[in-house]
């Protein structure tokens, strides 16, 4: 797609993480998206999050469907295997990969068309199945690659570039995930890296399905006056419910936070996520309340962002299936085959 090669030169002074990697080492191919695309900012935030978390690239798998957002898995972490599957079907492919190899970190990148229209069933069932993965929806309310049709997340009254107003009600992935029992639901904005990076990090270490809806404006087809998914609209209408501060495991927590508005949540791997309620009365550990608050914001024309809901991941797909710890893909056929004697014995019962 791209004929422009990224320069290989690295400044020797670039900071390195615990694995000895610089941020550049988490980059991928050159993006071919439009200049100013929100998705590229999400890619940059993901790179920052991976780098800060010391994620070994080869122990991650990048999963996607079809669309502008799904292309972005090529633009980060080139040391990871990537799977650009078919439209709307990334959740099932990821479920299968995770079933085969539970030892990897699965990063799913999708869009509003991929997740809320063609692939909505798959998204719902991946949530129900509680596949342990980060699921990012790069949400711009529009079909970019086919040049500007409304998507299922477009708000009523939001206008297309040609001035046509959308009349069908939108599907809010955060509300959807809340109603389906997702244990990690967040919303952020591609233009707010300081908010997005800690949320991505928290989602990456969450021990269950982590959904992050990222409003990521389409500069070519949905960034005009009248659009409710533009940079300007999102900046002006964003209401942050919680502010997240992610503390990796290697940082010893020495001081107790005296701020009563701060809540600390210990993740399964020992890392701690602290969040501060920035919105009066908001409690991201209360599913019903979270749902109501997000709904109220939507009614007022506001975009609720931040960590919207969190609880411990609960029984994930493997816990439910009671699979062995060792990845199934690593078991040899010789270990799995019951053998000659067992078959002889079994055959006696078919007489």
């Amino acid at each position, binding site marked *: 797609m791209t004929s422009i090669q990224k320069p290989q030169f690295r400044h020797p002074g670039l900071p390195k993480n615990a694995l000895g990697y610089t941020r550049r080492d988490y980059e991928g191919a050159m993006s071919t998206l439009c200049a100013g695309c929100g998705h590229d900012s999400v890619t940059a935030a993901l790179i920052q999050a991976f780098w800060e978390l010391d994620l070994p690239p080869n122990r991650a798998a990048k999963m996607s469907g079809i669309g502008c957002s799904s292309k972005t898995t090529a633009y980060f972490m080139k040391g990871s295997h990537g799977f650009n599957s078919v439209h709307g079907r990334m959740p099932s492919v990821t479920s*299968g990969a995770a*079933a085969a190899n539970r030892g990897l970190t699965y990063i799913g990148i999708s869009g509003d068309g991929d997740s809320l229209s063609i692939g909505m069933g798959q998204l719902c069932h991946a949530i129900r199945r509680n596949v342990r993965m980060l699921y990012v929806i790069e949400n711009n309310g529009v079909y970019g690659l086919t040049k500007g049709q409304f998507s299922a997340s477009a708000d009523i009254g939001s206008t297309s570039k040609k001035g046509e107003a959308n009349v069908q009600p939108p599907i809010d992935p955060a509300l959807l995930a809340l109603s389906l029992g997702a244990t990690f639901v967040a919303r952020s904005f591609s233009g707010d890296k300081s908010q997005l990076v800690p949320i991505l990090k928290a989602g990456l270490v969450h021990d269950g399905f982590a959904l992050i809806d990222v409003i990521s404006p389409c500069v070519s087809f949905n960034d005009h006056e009248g659009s409710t998914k533009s940079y300007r609209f999102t900046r002006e209408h964003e209401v942050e419910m919680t502010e997240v501060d992610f503390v990796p495991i290697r940082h010893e927590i020495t001081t107790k936070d005296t701020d009563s508005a701060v809540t600390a949540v210990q993740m399964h791997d020992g890392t701690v996520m602290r969040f501060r309620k920035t919105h009066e009365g908001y409690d991201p550990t209360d599913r019903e309340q979270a749902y109501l608050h997000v709904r109220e914001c939507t009614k007022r024309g506001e975009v609720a962002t931040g960590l919207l809901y969190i609880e411990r991941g609960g029984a994930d797909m493997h816990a439910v299936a009671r699979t062995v710890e060792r990845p199934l893909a690593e*078991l040899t056929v010789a270990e799995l*085959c019951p053998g000659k004697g067992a078959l002889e014995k079994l055959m006696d019962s078919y007489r």
Partner: protein
Amino acid sequence: MSGINDFAFKMATVNGTGSASANSLLMQAIFRMGIPVAGKNIFPSNIQGLPTWYEVRVSAHGYMARPAQVDLIVALNGTTLAKDIKTVRPGGYVMYDSSWPIPEAIKRADVTFLGVPFGDLAASAFERDRDRTLLRNIIYTGALGALLNIDHEIISEMLREKFAKKKSLLDANAKAIQMGWDYALEHFECPLPFHLEKMDETKDKVIIDGNTACGLGAVYAGATVGAWYPITPSTSLMEAFKAFCEKYRVDKETGLRKFCILQAEDELAAAGITIGAGWAGARSFTNTSGPGISLMQEFLGLAYYTEIPGVFFDVQRAGPSTGMPTRTQQADLMMLAYASHGDTKHLIVFPANPYECFTLTVEAFDLAERFQTPVFVASDLDIGMNDWMVPRFEWDENYVADRGKVLSAEELAALPKFSRYLDKDGDGIAARTLPGGDAKGAYFVRGSSHDEHAAYTEDSDAYVKVVDRIKRKIENAAKAVPAPLFVRNPGAEIGLVTLGSCDAAVREAMDRLKEQGFHVDFMRIRGFPFDTCVQQFLAEHEVNFIIEQNRDGQLRSLLAIETGIPRDAMVAVLDYSGMPLTAKSVVDAVTAHFAGVDA
């Protein structure tokens, strides 16, 4: 005609009344008497209240195909009684429930009516309504026991095995058997002219259905990820896989399982899970029927083009659309061969019976990983859900799974650069790496056009190079898929070509045709793409009859497309009634063809 150990009978009952267990009891008892036996369950797409039939064929010669007619019917379904009576051969017998009078209008003079008051007998002996309904079936089993000369001790032994832990049920069932037995002895001349006499022909055999055999094959092949969406007639395949996994794959200490079965939201997701797991390095599969394969088309193209292994079981049923979900057909052949948009061609194995379901399932997993592509196991309802008498399955302890070209860490390290789709060995198969390995082996799977290095390309030459290599790879697979099975007769100028569950009927037809002076050769296709020997066989014979179970002669078309032999130069013999094929329909078609030619 019929005779000792050579006859057929059927039970016409209402589904959901417990007749299935009585029928399998009968079949198993005959099997234990050492006599070859086959059973066909003709059942409705319904849980309770609709007509169902169970046909049992006894054949000292070992003919296992569906019989063209029956010698005796147990007609216990009032709604189908008139029709059922018509299906008995002249001179045959109708056993019916004489608790109620049978209308004179539907009686026949050329058959013998055996009235047994099943309803009254059950009502007199059992208290509860449910027992009366269920045990009525056991009473007819007892009556048949006396009429057909079934070994009473074998029946008793089977009841003891079945109800080992339920004394009250054992007593009730034993009582019902005896009631039927005694009634028949008292009122009829037992045994009938055609009946059973002990043989020793089933020692090395088992009775098993194809779905169970496929599930067992998947366990033996080392499959760990199974994804599915329930659909008749393939459901019992995953149930069997699950049951065998629970038997063999659960860690005794931890209770943890070396398998992961995911019931997906639909067949699309089941295909996606299968492909995702295959990509990640597990042996994975999904089981479905025609409608499911229709839904999986897009994913099948993805797996073909991105070269990811996976085994797809298609237990075919009668189509199109919802069709007849509980009837058999072989009507998915064209769809499987070229599934998905764009140029594709897929590997298929065609088992003919549960024995081959076991062996070819294991082969399918090897083929899928060796050729890095989806492989279909094309079974059907007749094989999948009916009980077949087949040789005992055997396992070769020396079996080594063919995992295909997956680079080890050392092999990867030794490479100057890893290119996922580069054909280094000249066999069309490029080595792959698995996620989780060294970053050097990382690549990007994409269903969009890609070059040898897995990079996106819109360059025509780079695109053509990859799709041409995949074509070469699939062509090479023709030598690796299971070879056709041939039976040759010196000088034969007629070829009978078939596949799958038609095998038994066609082979029986060969014997009948020989008696009529037709010398024929036989070829049963077991794999796709076709190897050159398929074309050779067709070219060697003056006339080829292509015998299959679909309306449009799909195998014939496939042979024409793939071998270049004109379609109309081959004679289509088709049975798409939804019922298992009979030898008679094959014999009739062949003889009719020559009668027409001679005239």
